[in-house]
């Protein structure tokens, strides 16, 4: 799975939105959920926080795979969801870089929040959580002194000044 970390904070989302925005918060349900950043529970929590802070969240959505172009386009075009997606002015995709790129492409013309980065590929276990094993950026292995069995997401995020957990 792709190991992801947050490059932005909840305050960054607030600064990026305007009170006039009609917001959709959507999440991928695979890697980003395994990394403890996304999934239904965390997206609902983010929507509630934004709502409490006066922003207009009009919808939350779970997309099984945000890297699946068909699933993303189905949300845009399906009779059950097309009106709400057409109405939205800002979309917050909780997904890896590919998922965010897919959302930006599918919902062209809308604001799409980019606050998560995919660091590379790794494993997951109940005991240790997500671990980065193979970074996309080869210099990262040296920078992190990455052991062959990988490094825990929370440890590498701390080293890189990135954030983990839900927004």
């Amino acid at each position, binding site marked *: *799975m792709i190991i992801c970390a947050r490059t932005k904070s909840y305050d960054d989302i607030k600064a990026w939105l305007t009170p006039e925005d009609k917001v959709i918060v959507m999440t991928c349900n695979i890697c980003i959920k395994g990394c403890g950043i996304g999934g239904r529970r965390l997206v609902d929590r983010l929507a509630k926080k934004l709502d409490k802070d006066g922003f207009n969240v009009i919808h939350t959505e779970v997309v099984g795979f945000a890297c699946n172009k068909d699933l993303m386009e189905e949300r845009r075009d399906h009779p059950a969801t097309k009106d709400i997606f057409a109405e939205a002015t800002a979309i917050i995709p909780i997904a890896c870089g590919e998922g965010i790129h897919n959302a930006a492409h599918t919902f062209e013309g809308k604001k799409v929040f980019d606050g998560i980065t995919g660091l590379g590929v790794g494993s997951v276990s109940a005991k240790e959580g997500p671990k980065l094993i193979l970074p996309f950026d080869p210099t990262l292995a040296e920078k992190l002194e990455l052991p062959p069995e990988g490094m825990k997401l929370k440890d590498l995020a701390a080293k890189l000044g990135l954030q983990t957990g839900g927004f």
Partner: protein
Amino acid sequence: MIKSEMLAYDAIKKQLDKKDKVGIITCNNCARLCGVGGPEKGEELEAKLSKDGYKVTGVTDMLVACNFEYYKDANVSPDATALLVLGCPVGLKVVEQVYKDKKAVKCAEAVGAFIFSPSINRLKVEEVFAGCEAKKGTEYSILTGEALKDQKM
């Protein structure tokens, strides 16, 4: 999703000893979409190896090869001495750590990350590992991994 590519059959065989009892572990997530994993590729490799005189103990389908939890119920033969991993290099690392008494055999290289579209049977590499820069933007057929010359995504 992670794009991986199968090593040549001879490169896989070179890592084996004729005395090895070979288990095959296939990933059914990213690797299957890339034409590396899945039951079809596992059985195809099993047939080739058996024909070449190797003792194959069985094919184990893993839902996701990079998740340690799925190995708790995995039906891997205790007799196997070598485990061929039809998954990305992370799946291989996990197999190495779970089955420390067995030789984990690399069968694929990682290329990068992709988006995909089942309706047009294509995947597109969006992000690449070092050394695979030329493959960025390339589209492939889903389940076969065949590189396509045109772009539709």
